[in-house]
């Protein structure tokens, strides 16, 4: 049903009248092809008129030239489509720094501090990635940035409140040093600077007790909650804070991935469709020319026969030329238009050549 309708639409757009009319976007994009078809239709019409009226015989359609023109238009239309889609794609979805850490699952990218190692495998949710920096001499651990992400079930204020409550319950000597709203890449965030004491538990290799200072940047966006945490010892915190802030400023939320595969499929489909359309048009062009040439041959042969016989039954002529009586009548009408003294009697159904004295 759909393909049939598309064929009908294609035929509709080949109509010369419709070619001059504004069409909606998908067809407007392919308009150059249809305009070309109009050009061909017009040329064909000239050719047909030329054959039928014995005028403009030399205005025949140079098929090869037309085909080259069709190819040129097809290629330029596809190139135009490709360029437009590329420009739209880049502007709508944004370019990502090639050095950035990109997480498509949670839709963000961030540049890790230079020289830090990235680990996003084997991390425990909701943490999705760790950036590891230098070792803290006092603890043997590493200064790090970790990013946690998950589905948001609350507003930012409720999220912040929940984090504070959780930390107070789970961390020894938990203390909020400072807090407040801030912006990161135009996102409304909440910043918490906290300290707490690490206490070794059972099953933990590190047996030291040491203090931790953290900056947590929390925000809720598009149904997701994010927590970007910078962790250091109080002695190293200020030294590495600018490194964290520099990295934090590169944080970006990503749009959905640009659907290159879909676009590619559409382009291939359009090229195949346009190619098929071009082939069909050329085939019909050739068929039509052939039919018209045959019609012209019938016209001239009928005249020869009539000159010899004077009067012939129309059904005999139709049989002789393996065509219909209607086509013979049309040939007679054409001869009469060209000034040949022939007539068709509808009662006797005879075609007569009226010999002139």
């Amino acid at each position: 049903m759909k393909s049939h309708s598309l064929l009908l639409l294609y035929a509709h757009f080949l109509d010369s009248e419709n070619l001059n009319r504004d069409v909606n976007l998908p067809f407007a994009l392919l308009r150059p092809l249809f305009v070309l078809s109009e050009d061909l239709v017009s040329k064909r019409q000239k050719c047909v008129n030329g054959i039928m009226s014995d005028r403009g015989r030399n205005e025949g359609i140079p098929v090869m030239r037309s085909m080259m023109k069709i190819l040129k238009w097809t290629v330029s239309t596809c190139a135009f489509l490709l360029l437009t889609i590329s420009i739209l794609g880049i502007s709508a979805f944004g370019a990502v720094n090639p050095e950035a850490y990109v997480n498509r699952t949670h839709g963000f990218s961030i540049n890790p501090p230079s020289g830090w190692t990235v680990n996003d495998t084997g991390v425990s949710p909701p943490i999705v990635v760790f950036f590891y920096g230098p070792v803290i001499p006092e603890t043997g651990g590493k200064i790090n940035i970790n990013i946690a992400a998950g589905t948001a079930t609350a507003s930012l204020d409720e999220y912040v409140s929940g984090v504070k409550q959780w930390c107070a319950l789970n961390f020894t000597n938990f203390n909020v040093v400072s807090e407040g709203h801030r912006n990161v890449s135009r996102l409304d965030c909440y910043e918490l600077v906290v300290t707490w004491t690490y206490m070794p538990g059972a099953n933990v290799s590190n047996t030291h007790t040491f203090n931790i200072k953290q900056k947590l940047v929390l925000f809720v966006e598009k149904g997701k909650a994010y927590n970007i945490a910078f962790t250091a010892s109080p002695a190293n915190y200020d030294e590495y804070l600018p490194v964290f802030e520099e990295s934090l400023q590169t944080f970006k939320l990503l749009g959905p991935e640009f659907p290159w595969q879909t676009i590619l499929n559409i382009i291939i489909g359009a090229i195949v469709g346009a190619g098929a359309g071009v082939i069909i048009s050329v085939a019909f062009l050739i068929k039509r020319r052939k039919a018209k040439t045959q019609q012209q041959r019938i016209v001239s042969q009928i005249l020869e026969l009539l000159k010899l016989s004077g009067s012939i039954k129309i059904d005999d002529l139709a049989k002789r030329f393996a065509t219909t009586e209607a086509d013979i009548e049309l040939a007679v009408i054409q001869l009469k238009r060209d000034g040949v003294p022939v007539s068709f009697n509808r009662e006797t159904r005879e075609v007569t050549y009226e010999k002139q004295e």
Partner: protein
Amino acid sequence: MLEKEEIKGYILADKFSWKPNIHFALFFTLKRLIVAKVGALFKDFVASAEYAKKAEELKEVSIESILKADKDNFEIPYTDITDIEIKKAGWKDKLVADFVTIGTLTIKIKDKKGQKFNITKLRIDPSAPSKVKPQKLEDCINVVRSVLSDKLSVKS
């Protein structure tokens, strides 16, 4: 005597089917309707202008030759027609039948299955035979009204 019948006017129409659409010219004389095939989509022509041109050519031909021109051609005497309805195409007709339909023409025939056609958009401009012009529904109604006014019903 039938050969002297004059064609009072014609309507270009097609019949939608899974096979390629068959385009017809419905020639109205004073006594009967001649349904003449003018081509099939992708079998004979691609552009509607070609069907219109073929119909304009056939108009000049005798009715007997038109009827013999194709096995799909047939006649319906007006005495057999009980009702003829012309309806403006709605979006559903365009979607289901044909995007270039401007209306539908339904013929109810005595003791036989009726005929339904989609009225197409273009026809040849008689004043300029190389040009096409829109086929207007009002003109189609007038053609039918000139010969079958008592059986014609128009719906919008």
